[in-house]
C-alpha cells in the first residue's frame, strides 16, 4: 500500500510537469489547430536562459520572472516571423515549420551551452515535504505551481476581455473579426502564452532531469498524451490529463512486469492512440451542442 501511494504521489508530481507542457500545447492548438512539435525545445531554450541568468548572478525568482517575460516575447516573435506567413499554408508546410524550429533551437542551444548536462537549482529544495517521506518539497512545489497556473489561466480566460477575445478568435475566427477582434494578434498572444507556460514547465523539470538540449523530448510526448487525453481544447482537461498520465506512467512502471523505463515512452504513445480511437474529444473536450 505504501508503495502504491508513493507511486501515485510521484505520478502526480511528474504529472504536474506534463500538465504544464499540455497547457502550452493546448494554448497553441487552440490558436492554430496544430500541435507544436517544437514546444519542448522552446521550453528547453527558456530554461537555459534562466540558467544563464543565474550563472550571471541573478537571484532565482528574478531569473524566473525575467525568463517568463523573455519567453512570452520570444513566442510572439516566433509566430510573427515564422508562422504568420504560414497561416494559410497546408498542414504539412506547418509541420515542416515546426520540425525546422525544433532542429534550429536544439542546435543553437547546443552551440551556445554545449550538450553536457547541467545542474539546475530548485527553489523548493528537496527535503521531505511536511516531514513525509512520500513526497519532496520540490515535487510539492511543482504541483503547487501547476495548480496556481491553471487557476490564473482560468481567471484570465473567464473574466478578462482579452481572454474572451482569444476564446472567440479560437472558436469562430470569422465572427471574431466581425466584432472587431484582430484574430492574427490573438494567435500571436497564444504563442506568447504557450511559450511562457513552457518556460515554467522547463524550469520546474530541470532540477529533476538535469539541464541539457535534449531534456524535453520525453516530457513533450507525455505533454501531448496529456493534452490529447484532456481534449486539446480545455486547459482544465490538459491539467487533469497531465496528472493522470503521470500516475498511469508510474503505476505501469511499477506494477506491469517488463515495463521498465525503456517501455514508458511507448506507453505514452499507446495512450494517445487509445484516446483518439475511444474518445476522440478527450475527457474534457468541447461537445458542441447544436440545434438547427
Amino acid at each position, binding site marked *: 500500500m505504501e508503495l502504491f501511494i508513493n507511486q501515485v504521489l510521484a505520478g502526480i508530481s511528474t504529472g504536474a510537469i506534463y500538465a504544464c507542457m499540455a497547457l502550452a500545447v493546448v494554448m497553441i492548438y487552440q490558436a492554430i489547430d496544430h500541435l507544436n512539435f517544437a514546444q519542448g525545445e522552446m521550453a528547453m531554450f527558456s530554461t537555459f536562459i534562466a540558467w544563464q541568468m543565474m550563472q550571471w548572478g541573478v537571484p532565482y525568482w528574478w531569473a524566473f520572472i525575467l525568463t517568463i517575460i523573455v519567453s512570452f516575447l520570444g513566442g510572439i516573435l516566433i509566430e510573427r516571423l515564422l508562422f504568420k506567413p504560414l497561416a494559410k499554408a497546408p498542414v504539412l508546410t506547418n509541420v515542416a515549420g515546426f520540425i525546422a524550429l525544433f532542429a534550429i533551437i536544439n542546435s543553437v542551444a547546443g552551440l551556445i551551452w554545449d550538450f553536457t548536462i547541467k545542474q539546475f537549482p530548485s527553489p523548493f529544495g528537496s527535503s521531505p515535504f511536511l516531514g513525509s517521506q512520500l513526497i519532496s518539497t520540490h515535487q510539492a512545489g511543482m504541483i503547487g505551481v501547476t495548480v496556481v497556473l491553471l487557476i490564473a489561466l482560468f481567471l484570465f480566460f473567464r473574466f478578462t476581455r482579452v481572454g474572451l477575445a482569444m476564446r472567440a478568435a479560437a472558436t469562430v475566427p470569422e465572427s471574431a473579426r466581425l466584432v472587431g477582434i484582430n*484574430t492574427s494578434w490573438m494567435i500571436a498572444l497564444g504563442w506568447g502564452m504557450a511559450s511562457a507556460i513552457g518556460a515554467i514547465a522547463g524550469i520546474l523539470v530541470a532540477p529533476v532531469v538535469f539541464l541539457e538540449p535534449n531534456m524535453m523530448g520525453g516530457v513533450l510526448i507525455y505533454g501531448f498524451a496529456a493534452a490529447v487525453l484532456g481534449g486539446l481544447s480545455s486547459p482544465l482537461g490538459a491539467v487533469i490529463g497531465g496528472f493522470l498520465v503521470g500516475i498511469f506512467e508510474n503505476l505501469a512502471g511499477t506494477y506491469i512486469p517488463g515495463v521498465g523505463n525503456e517501455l514508458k515512452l511507448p506507453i505514452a504513445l499507446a495512450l494517445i492512440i487509445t484516446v483518439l480511437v475511444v474518445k476522440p474529444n478527450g475527457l474534457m473536450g468541447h461537445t458542441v*451542442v447544436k*440545434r438547427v
Partner: protein
Amino acid sequence: MTALLDIKDLRSYYGQVQALHGIEFHLKEGSMTALLGTNGAGKTTTIRAICNMVRSTGTIQFEGKPLMGKSTESIVRLGIAHVPQGRGTFTTLTVEENLQLGAITRKDTKVIASDIEKMYSYFPKLKERHTQQAGTLSGGEQQMLAVARALMLRPRLMLLDEPSFGLAPLIVRDLFGIIGKINREDKVSILVVEQNAQLALEIADQAYVIETGRIVMSGSASDIVNNEDIQKSYLGH
C-alpha cells in the same frame, strides 16, 4: 449631402470567378435600404465586400473615407456591424458572452452592462437564456442574438444578411419590428439583404435590386413595390 455609404464600380471575385460586375449604390444617413435579388444574385458578396471579406476592386466610402484595403476588423471598428448569413454565433460561448463580444472593441466599458440590459429588453428570450451555451438556442433566438451582438457595437451602420432566413413568420414579424425600431429610435442606418422582398419593402425606405452581380433597378421602396416587373418576379403577383 454626402452619403453614409457610397459604393462605385464594385467588382468581386472568388478565385477566377467574377461575382459582382460593377455594383454602384449609396445609402443615406439614417436610411433603411434593402438589397433585393434572387438566390445567387450577389447580395451576400456585396455586403461581404463592404467588410473586405472577398477580393474586390472599386471604391467603397464610409462617411467619405475609403474602406478598400482596410482589414475586416478595422472596418468594424469604424462602426459597421455585420450580421452574417448563417448568423455567426459563437456556439460554445454563453449568450451573454456573445453580447459582450459585440462590444469588445468599445472603450466605454462602464455602459456595456446597461447596453446588454437594453438588448434583453428588446429580446426577452435572450435574458431567459443568458447563461446558456449559444449553440443551444433555436434558429430564431440565434438570429436575435446575432442582431443584438451587432447592436452592442453601437454601430453607425448595420449590415443584415437575410435576417428572415429559416424563421417562422411570426418570429420574422417580431424581428423586423425591432429592426425598424432600432433604425428609427437609435438612428442606426441599415442595409438589409433579403430574398423575401415583400417583407423588406415594408420596412425599407430605399431599395436596390441586384441580378447576376449587377444593380438592375433602384428607387424608393414604394416605387419598387409598385413596379410591374418587380411584382411579377419578386412579389409573386
